[in-house]
């Protein structure tokens, strides 16, 4: 008989204490995952609108892109403590660190988006605007998805197990929220591409979230069904579903576009918080760290025999 604590699944632990440390990130970080994702997808939408000559849509998307990317470093710095600390990340570039790569993506696309928005507002330098817009549009997709890679590249069980689907979930949420936001601000008939992006993004988000929750396996997947992860996850699904339906049925009217876009943004935001909390929950329980490892060792041993 051992006096060491045993978890309900039968995993042995040291007084029930976690094996790994959970994330020290404050809620600013999942909030940034939302604003950064929205910004990235809006940059792609803005470039698309510019290239297809839809200037009304391009203007709105450019401004949404710039607004969302302006908030992003503020959130990151708030998590770090003071602005100078952000600069420490600009002294290296490391492919093994998605955060390092992401720092350069944020810095590059932020500068480009800001320049494009300034040209748009002041109506100057059309060529410079297109160049800045192109750079922001090229970096946009990765601004939306690198954060999925960032959390996947950790030992937090639910994040690491979701490494194949997390970037897709973030891409879908980015498309839904950027499409919804821009569609809400753009008059018809110019808003149509944004509206379509919002609908496609909403459907993709519902599908990819389901795939992610199933894909992490039954044991680790429990984290999605507990506490705040469960609450935010349910809110996210409900808001995304409602937002997709409203945008599809009533999105061609301004009121419908505003309500639908608001719901899609709320859905994408809640999903980031669901992922954030699921990570915290899965890190805090030693079962999710040790039991999959025990099973892996056992099956490796079986194969060896």
């Amino acid at each position, binding site marked *: *008989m*051992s*006096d*060491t604590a045993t978890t309900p699944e039968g995993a042995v*632990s*040291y*007084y029930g*204490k976690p094996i*790994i*440390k959970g*994330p*020290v*990130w404050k809620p600013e970080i999942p909030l940034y995952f939302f604003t950064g994702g929205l910004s990235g*997808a809006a940059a792609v939408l803005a470039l*698309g609108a510019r290239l*297809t000559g839809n200037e009304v849509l391009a203007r709105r998307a450019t401004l949404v892109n710039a607004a969302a990317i302006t908030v992003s470093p503020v959130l990151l710095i708030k998590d*770090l*403590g003071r602005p100078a*600390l952000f600069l*420490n*990340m600009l*002294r*290296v570039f*490391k*492919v093994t*660190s*998605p*955060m390092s790569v992401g*720092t350069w993506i944020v810095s590059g696309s932020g500068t480009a988006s800001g320049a494009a928005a300034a040209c748009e507002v002041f109506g100057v330098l059309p060529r410079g605007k297109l160049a800045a817009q192109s750079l922001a549009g090229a970096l*946009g*997709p*990765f601004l*939306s*998805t690198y954060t*999925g*890679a*960032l959390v*996947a*590249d*950790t*030992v937090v069980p639910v994040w*690491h197990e979701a490494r194949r689907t*997390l*970037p*897709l979930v*973030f891409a879908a949420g980015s*498309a839904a929220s950027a*499409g919804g936001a821009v569609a809400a601000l753009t008059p018809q008939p110019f808003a*149509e*591409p*944004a509206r*379509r*992006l919002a609908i*496609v*993004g909403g459907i*993709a988000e519902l599908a990819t979230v389901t795939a992610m929750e199933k894909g992490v396996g039954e044991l680790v997947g429990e984290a999605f069904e507990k506490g705040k992860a469960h609450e935010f996850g349910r809110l996210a699904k409900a808001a995304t579903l409602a937002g997709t339906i409203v945008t599809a049925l009533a999105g061609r009217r301004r009121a419908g576009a505003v309500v639908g876009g608001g719901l899609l943004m709320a859905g994408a935001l809640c999903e980031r918080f669901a992922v954030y909390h699921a990570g915290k929950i899965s890190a805090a329980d030693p079962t999710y760290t*040790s039991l999959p*490892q*025990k099973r*892996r060792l056992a099956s490796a041993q079986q194969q060896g025999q």
Partner: protein
Amino acid sequence: MSVTSPDGQTTYGLQIQPRMGFFTDTSICIGCKACEVACKEWNLVPEDGLDFTGNSYDNTGELSANSWRHVAFIEQRMEFPVQEAGVGTDFRWLMSSDVCKHCTHAGCLDVCPTGAIFRTEFGTVVIQDDVCNGCGYCVVACPFGVISKRELDDDGGMHKCTLCYDRLQDGMEPACAKACPTKSIQFGPLDELLERAQGRVEDLHEAGVDDARLYLDGPEDGIGGAGAFFLLLDEPEVYGLPPDPVVPTKHLGEIWGSALVAGAVLVAGVAAAFLGAGE
């Protein structure tokens, strides 16, 4: 001439030293916590709370920014042939001084976005606290939960065992190993320690301690072996250690691959939205 460090990178040139590490033989740990105290004194590690946990004699709790050695105490209703606990024959006490593993493939070092974490000429892994910006990525990249944040008002950085880098540079052994009264903590060139550890396991098996096993002693595990390895008397998870630790960057290719695919899907989605609307 090129010299290769434990993680396979060519670095340091002629300055490189033999890889140094710890062999913690938990079978002779007496739970005195001299290692914890010596570490705190030498490295000026602040107080980490004066709490009673109720978990045997362990009031340190876990490794953290403010505890670079942590002695675990495990009480078991089990006989231990070479130990007289003084509370009957069906009782054994396991004690183990845990520390940063100084992994061959160190997740903390891989993900650090500032370059604050580096590998020394001794093959150890050290955080430069003036470069660290407290982002917290290393905390969740460590399979052992070694690193945490030392909280300050609007600042604060990550801290962990340095394997007494300053002492090593002056040819001294780390403070914990120096203070250990039973040589449970042994310091030296890693290859020598590994050889000694093998002999110790064989001796223990001969003495009837069948449970004795080495932990993190080989390059074939998920972290490529550790610079600090252990002789344990039970499964790793009993001591709060992961049974099969894997560095998260082992799957870096897959992770970047899925981010690139997701980015491409996003572009395709936007393109489709415009093509569909063009009619």
